[in-house]
């Protein structure tokens, strides 16, 4: 079932991706659950199955694409409109939106570039990430997936395990300490993203590393809000 949620952008350049995203979202905007899709290789008969899956899973938004500043902007505009339609509580809308910003900007800043041939990956896939936002009766969920170098895996894993073991006041102290440590990179991100996701969601971060080659893995993250 899950595999059907992957949205294909196929062999298109970025501008057409954004364009297609907007067109599909426009076309599908009358249905309760929305998904952006350019389905290249799916048989026609599977379109209804795909629609049903998206509907049953209460998928609010999903894409597989290279995360660019324009895509990020479009995605946030769309999710804001969708949340206004489906979520009466402003407090929850703000929280979901805020955490989605962090997830998307994590993908934007940290998706790595690989030597495709060496890694035996196609160029179109290796820079891409996946995002799925969905809900059930009690909570919202944001799932992301992106490739990472294995040399970063241990550090990230330890960071996430440590964050998951912290209570509220430990998380606050760690956030303040990191905020005030004076470290910056070029974009201004500075190791606060995961702390913020863990702290503001109020839930443990679920994660998994799927080995792809000797050097790279696919990092899957699930944030639960509610």
């Amino acid at each position: 079932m899950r595999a059907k949620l992957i949205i294909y952008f196929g062999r298109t350049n970025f501008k057409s991706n954004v364009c297609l995203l907007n067109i599909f979202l426009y076309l599908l905007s009358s249905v309760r659950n929305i998904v952006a899709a350019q389905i290249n290789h799916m048989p026609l008969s599977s379109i209804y199955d795909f629609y049903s899956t998206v509907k049953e899973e209460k998928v609010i938004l999903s894409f597989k694409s290279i995360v660019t500043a324009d895509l990020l902007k479009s995605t946030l505009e769309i999710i804001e409109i969708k949340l206004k339609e489906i979520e009466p509580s402003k407090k929850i809308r703000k929280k979901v939106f805020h955490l989605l910003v962090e997830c998307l900007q994590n993908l934007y800043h940290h998706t790595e570039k690989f030597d495709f041939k060496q890694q035996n990956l196609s160029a179109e896939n290796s820079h891409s990430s996946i995002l799925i936002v969905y809900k059930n009766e009690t909570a919202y969920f944001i799932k992301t997936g992106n490739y990472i170098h294995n040399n970063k895996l241990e550090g990230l894993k330890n960071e996430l395990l440590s964050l998951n073991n912290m209570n509220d006041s430990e998380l606050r102290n760690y956030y303040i300490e990191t905020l005030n440590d004076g470290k910056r990179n070029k974009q201004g991100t500075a190791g606060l993203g995961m702390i913020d996701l863990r702290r503001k969601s109020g839930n443990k971060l679920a994660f998994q590393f799927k080995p792809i080659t000797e050097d790279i893995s696919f990092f899957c993250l699930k944030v639960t809000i509610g």
Partner: protein
Amino acid sequence: MKDLKLEGSAKTPSVLFLAREGKLELKGRSIPENSIEFYKPLLDWLDVYRTDPQEQTIVDMKLEYFNTSSSKCILDLFKKLEDINRGNTQINVNWFFEEDDEDMEEAGEDYQAIINLPFTMIEVDEI
């Protein structure tokens, strides 16, 4: 000195830094991908303001929310204000947050824990 006025956008807050009034305001959301680029002119403006500040400077922070990339830049802004406060101006920070928005209330308290400036927390219906 010139005032600094920037319109708000989908990713950046509106900025109103009025030198003669001693009034500084940030309003809206701050979620740019590159926050350093956005905040640099604000920090530069403060460097000029510190040379001849008003006796009293009011800082109104009316942020709906901000990303973690902005949070370090906002801290830089407060640190600069903290420095200016040691000179010949009294700085007061008003931290606005929407009713029930515990995240933004906590964010204000986080800065209060780091920055030595008087903060007033103000709960409003809508920013």
